């Protein structure tokens, strides 16, 4: 089964798009959590369970948005590619690996697109959850979540250097600059 999935990914060149979706939607998740926690931080006196509820609901919404949008767009894209190939081959290709790939790959890409912001968000809001469950942290949970947001954004920037082939430290710092600009805008309008 794993080798068949690998074959489908190779046939459709899906690894490039899944890597891209992982970074872009993961970045969406991390920046959204940064924005939410910045808001809570400036509000002050926000209970950790209220913050956790809002962050978790947002993470679920991001996951559903990622799953559905990628599935819809990728299904359309793969069906069109298969149709073009069938036209060129003058043959029905539903039973071939290309037909199977056109059906399966949209699920795979949707899964990456949906899970990437969700899992990254869960990691970022983990200090809120730990705090609610009685685990003492050296920092205020919202401050810890903010630091985790910056770390995740930096790491996503590092990972993007694998796609672009640019210097890893530069891509990491560039992502951090975006996070800082976002924080600065929130600070301005607080």
């Amino acid at each position, binding site marked *: 089964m794993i080798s068949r999935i690998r074959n489908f990914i*190779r*046939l459709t060149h899906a690894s490039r798009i899944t890597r891209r979706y992982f970074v872009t939607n993961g970045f969406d998740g991390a920046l959204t959590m940064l924005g939410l926690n910045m808001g809570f931080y400036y509000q002050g006196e926000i209970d950790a369970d209220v913050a956790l509820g809002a962050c978790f609901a947002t993470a679920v919404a991001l996951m559903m948005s990622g799953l559905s949008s990628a599935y819809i767009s990728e299904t359309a894209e793969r069906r069109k590619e298969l149709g*073009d*190939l069938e036209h*060129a*081959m003058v*043959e029905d*290709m539903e*039973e*071939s*690996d*290309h037909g199977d790939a056109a059906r399966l790959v949209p699920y795979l890409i949707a899964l990456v697109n949906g899970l990437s912001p969700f899992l990254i968000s869960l990691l970022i809001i983990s200090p809120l959850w730990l705090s609610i469950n009685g685990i003492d942290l050296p920092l205020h949970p919202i401050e810890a979540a903010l630091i985790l947001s910056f770390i995740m954004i930096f790491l996503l920037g590092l990972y993007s250097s694998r796609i672009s082939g640019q210097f890893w430290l530069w891509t990491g710092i560039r992502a951090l600059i975006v996070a800082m600009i976002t924080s600065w805008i929130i600070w301005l309008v607080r």
Partner: protein
Amino acid sequence: MELVKRLLLDVLKPHSPNPLEFARNLASLSEGYEVRLVVEEMDEKTESIILEISAHDIDYDLVSEKIKEMGGSIHSIDEVEVVNAPAGE
């Protein structure tokens, strides 16, 4: 007992899998399969290839099924070599 020793097939296939993977997948069908692939013509989305398969006894149904699975289509069987081997070989 008739054994199919060699087949020469004219096949139309998509670019993916590439000729190396295509030939490798066919050779992996059974031990002793030798595959020679020549790309005759390339279009935007497809390529015409000539496939030469040699083995002790080629299972044509298996070969055609594998070609179909990889998205290819056999246009014609251009050459065949069959021997009548003594029973038990």
